[in-house]
Each structure stands twice: as structure tokens, then as C-alpha cells.
């Protein structure tokens, strides 16, 4: 199987979809400069640089999407999405409803985010939950090179506006990408590792940390099921509930702030729909309610690492009987020989 970086996988997805469908075009600041291979293959009208004007870039994509084109726009860094909020939220997200279904808005917005490059709070802000909270939009955040390609191809074919978040730390991490046509449906989570004792649910750069934690948990006799959400909206509710039904324990992990983050929504849904199956309190691990720091160690502290995930999972696996919620780090309940399972 070919080994590609997510950056290259994105390039393949763009090229394949532009080849398949002549209405697909890509524009953004530096797109034509950086992806010159696309310019050579598809010409300067379908691969365009734009002014540093993210509002008009997103609005142009919305208007073009509604009238026959399938634009992919690159807005570079997630905090820059602030400049494009009216166009994405009020136009692309709402005009289908407002027009009584007369128009749809097939467009994909690429934005990088997350720690790893020390770019600071105004270039690194995991704001994906903002868009999950906005109607009419879909939100994707892959963790593997194969998914970057397969999910981007699906996003381009989707008739809705899709926010496609690119975790900076993963962009140049090589991974296997299947040969030939590789399409991953939106809205489907993936079980990366089965386990019976605790569910580790994550997306983006904390997925590999969950896998590493699962290894450590296995050594401690705890079977962790690791699920990569991939799509934050639509959320794969059935995959989440099925896993929690099996394990009875849930740790949700993301780099974005815990406060009103995607993890909060998942925890709420699980509490509403699988309360009686829970054997321990749900744990949310996430970043602080603070701007991302540029300093390397402070930036790294935003994303829960394998040690933190291991500790959280192990701690709730100490609670074997239903609903014996105790604060993290407190003594295991006196429930016989299940103190650590």
C-alpha cells in the first residue's frame, strides 16, 4: 500500500475529484502557488490564488456552489475562519433552509489547526465545535492519511457545506493510503481497536495518543476500545452508543477546549441514551479554556497525551459497579476484586 503524508493525500483527493468532475475547482491564498501540479493538470481557471480576503473567498464559494460549481477553498488557519463566518454560517449554512430547498451549497473549506508548529493562539484554535453548533454544515477532522484522502473525496461529492479541519501535527506524518479509488463516507466513526472494558473516543491528533494509551491499558489488564470519530457532524451516534453499551465506560479526548466542546455533546448524548449502561462516570479530556500558547511545552499541554488518557481510563475502570461516581484520583470503591478493572 502506498505511503503518503496527509498533505499528499489531500493533493491526490483534489486531483482525482477534479479529474472526475469538471465542476470541481479549488481556490485560496497560495493554493495555486503551492499546488502547482494541480495548476499544470487543470489550468489556472480551476486552481486559483485569492487575495487575503477570507470573507469574499468563502462567499464566492457559497455563490458558486449554489449555481453549479463544487468549490474547495483553503482558508489556511482555523482562527482565520472568523473572517468568513457570515459567509459560512449565515449564507452556506442557512440559505438552503431560507430558500425552501431551492439552493444547495456544495463546498469544502479546508483549515489547519492544533498544536505542533508553535504558531500561537491566532493561528491555532481548535474551533471545530463552533461549526458543529451551526445548522446546515458538516464538520470533518481526520486522523490518518487514508482518511484525509477518503473523507475529502466524500466531502467534495457532498451537496452540503463541509468544514474540513486539518490537524497541523498530522499534516506531514506518513501513513498507508489504499491504492485506487478510496472514498470514506461522512458520518461514520471507525473502531481502530476493539476492547470490552472502556471506550476511548477521539478525533484528530489525540487518536494516536488513545492507541498508545490502549497499549498501556492492555498491559495493565484493561481492554480499551479506541474509536476515531472522523466526522463531528453528522456524529456517528450508533457507533458511540454501541461501544458504550459494550464497555460501560467512556473517555472522550480532544485537543479543543473541554468547555462546550464536542466531548460535552457526546457525554450528554451518552448520559441521555445509555445512562443505565454506564458503569462509571464519563470522563472528558481536553484543552483548557485559554488561548493556545506559542511556547512549545505550553502548546503541547493542550492535547491530552497517552499518559493522561491511560490514567483517566484506569481510574474509571476502578469503578466496576454502576454509578459509583467518585472524583478522579480518589480511592477505588470497595467492590471486591475489581479495583483495577
Amino acid at each position, binding site marked *: 500500500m502506498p505511503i503518503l503524508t496527509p498533505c499528499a493525500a489531500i493533493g491526490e483527493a483534489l486531483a482525482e475529484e477534479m479529474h472526475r468532475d469538471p465542476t470541481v475547482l479549488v481556490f485560496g491564498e497560495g493554493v495555486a502557488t503551492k499546488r502547482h501540479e494541480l495548476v499544470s493538470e487543470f489550468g489556472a481557471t480551476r486552481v486559483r490564488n485569492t487575495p487575503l480576503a477570507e470573507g469574499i473567498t468563502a*462567499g464566492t464559494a457559497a455563490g*458558486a456552489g449554489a449555481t*453549479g460549481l463544487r468549490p474547495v477553498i483553503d482558508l489556511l488557519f482555523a482562527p482565520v475562519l472568523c473572517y468568513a463566518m457570515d*459567509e459560512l454560517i449565515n449564507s452556506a449554512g442557512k440559505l438552503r433552509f431560507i*430558500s425552501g430547498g431551492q439552493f444547495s451549497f456544495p463546498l469544502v473549506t479546508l483549515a489547519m489547526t492544533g498544536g505542533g508548529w508553535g504558531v500561537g493562539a491566532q493561528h491555532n484554535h481548535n474551533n471545530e465545535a463552533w461549526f458543529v453548533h451551526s445548522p446546515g454544515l458538516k464538520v470533518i477532522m481526520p486522523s490518518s492519511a487514508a482518511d484525509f484522502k477518503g473523507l475529502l473525496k466524500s466531502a467534495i461529492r457532498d451537496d452540503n457545506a463541509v468544514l474540513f479541519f486539518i490537524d497541523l501535527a498530522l499534516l506531514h506524518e506518513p501513513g498507508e493510503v489504499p491504492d485506487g479509488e478510496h472514498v470514506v463516507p461522512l458520518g461514520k466513526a471507525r473502531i481502530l481497536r476493539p476492547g470490552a472494558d472502556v471506550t476511548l473516543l477521539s478525533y484528530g491528533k489525540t487518536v494516536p495518543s488513545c492507541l498508545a494509551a490502549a497499549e498501556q491499558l492492555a498491559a495493565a489488564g484493561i481492554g480499551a476500545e479506541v474509536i476515531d470519530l472522523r466526522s463531528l457532524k453528522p456524529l456517528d451516534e450508533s457507533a458511540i452508543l454501541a461501544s458504550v453499551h459494550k464497555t460501560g465506560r467512556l473517555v472522550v479526548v480532544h485537543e479543543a477546549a473541554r468547555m462546550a466542546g464536542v466531548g460535552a455533546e457526546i457525554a450528554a448524548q451518552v448520559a441521555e441514551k445509555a445512562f443505565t449502561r454506564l458503569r462509571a462516570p464519563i470522563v472528558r479530556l481536553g484543552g483548557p479554556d485559554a488561548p493556545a500558547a506559542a511556547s512549545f511545552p505550553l502548546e503541547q499541554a493542550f492535547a491530552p497525551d497517552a499518559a493522561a488518557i491511560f490514567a483517566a481510563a484506569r481510574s474509571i475502570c476502578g469503578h466496576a459497579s454502576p454509578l459509583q461516581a467518585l472524583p478522579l484520583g480518589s480511592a477505588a470503591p470497595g467492590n471486591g476484586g475489581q479495583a483495577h478493572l
Partner: protein
Amino acid sequence: MRELGVVLTSTIVGGEMSLATGVALSQKMLGRPGIVACFFGDGAACEGVFHESLNLAAVWELPILYVCENNQWQAFVHRRETMTGEHIADRGAAYGIDSATVDGNDVLAVQHAALEASAQVCGSGRPFLLETWTCRSRGHFEPDDQAYVDPTEHSAWLARDPIARSRQRLADNGRLPHADAAALDQRLRQRIATALAFAEASPFPTLDELSTDVYA
């Protein structure tokens, strides 16, 4: 609205200017005939997206006829408080976009200017900025008593009401005698009354429509 050729709008002032570039890009890339006309006001011309839209339309050579209805009032603020200079058309030069200002209260003058401008957009494939110099006759919303508007200035504008002026002109040149105009008025009032009665007799939407057409 789609079958009438009206594609997209936004109730966020200026939002339509960001959509127009996309519609024009489709027009151009898909080889469809015709141009895109984008209507906005002097208030929208104070939004950042006005500048972004004109700049991109000029750089990408998009066939857009920008029509700015400069009606003096931006919600509850007179344009004198929000911009220097009187004319939005002057800003076209900054982007290399040809522009013109026309008496917005003269229907024939507006028609003539619009035909000329759209012919230029059609011929050149490039944007044009047409400003219609006018004033709104009613307030920003209903019922807005416009107590904040200078009554002298307002009545001077009302005296130049474009519909009344057209009607007088049509009567003067014999194209539409006053009696015929009154009959036309009556027909239109009847049509509005019928539409209103239809709306009032129609049931409210059902709750399932809340989630209809949110996603494709």
C-alpha cells in the same frame, strides 16, 4: 425566486455582495450567457465585503453589474455620518472599475443607465458600478415613524417620487392617461388583496418543516 432569475440574497447587509462573485464565477466558468446584477445600498458599501467583492470581481474579471441604491440612510444613520464624499460610484476607480451615477428617482434615466452599463459588462466581461441617487420614502422597518429624519429633506425627496414622476410623464406624453393609471392602480391593489387573503387563509407550517431543507 429561482425561476425568475433571482439567485440568492442575504439579510445580513452586504452578504449579497460576497455571493455575487460566486454566481458570476459559475456564469463565467460554465459558459452561461448573461451577467449578474447585484443590488445593495450605501450601508452595504460601508461593510468590508464591499471592498473585497469589488476587488475580486476586478481581479478575476467577473461579469457583475453592481447596483448601489444610495438612499441616504443606513438603517438609522444618515450616510453623512458614516462616509466621506457623497458618491459610492467614486470608489470604483480604486479597483479599476468603471462607474456612473444616475438620478435614481427618474425611471427612464435609470433604465437607460442600466442598459448602457449591462451592455458594457456583457461586452467587456468585467464589472461595472452603477449608483442610483435616491432616498428611501419609508423607514428602515415597519412601523418606523422616521422621527429621526429631517422633515424638510424628506419632503423634498418625496416630491420627487419616481412613480409619481413616471405617471405624470406618461400622462403628459399620452402613453397612459390618468384614468387608465387609476384603473391599473385598482388592478394592482386587487392583486395584492388577493395575495394577502391567500396568505391569511393558508395554514401555518407544521413542525416537521423545521428540519426540512436544512441539509441536502
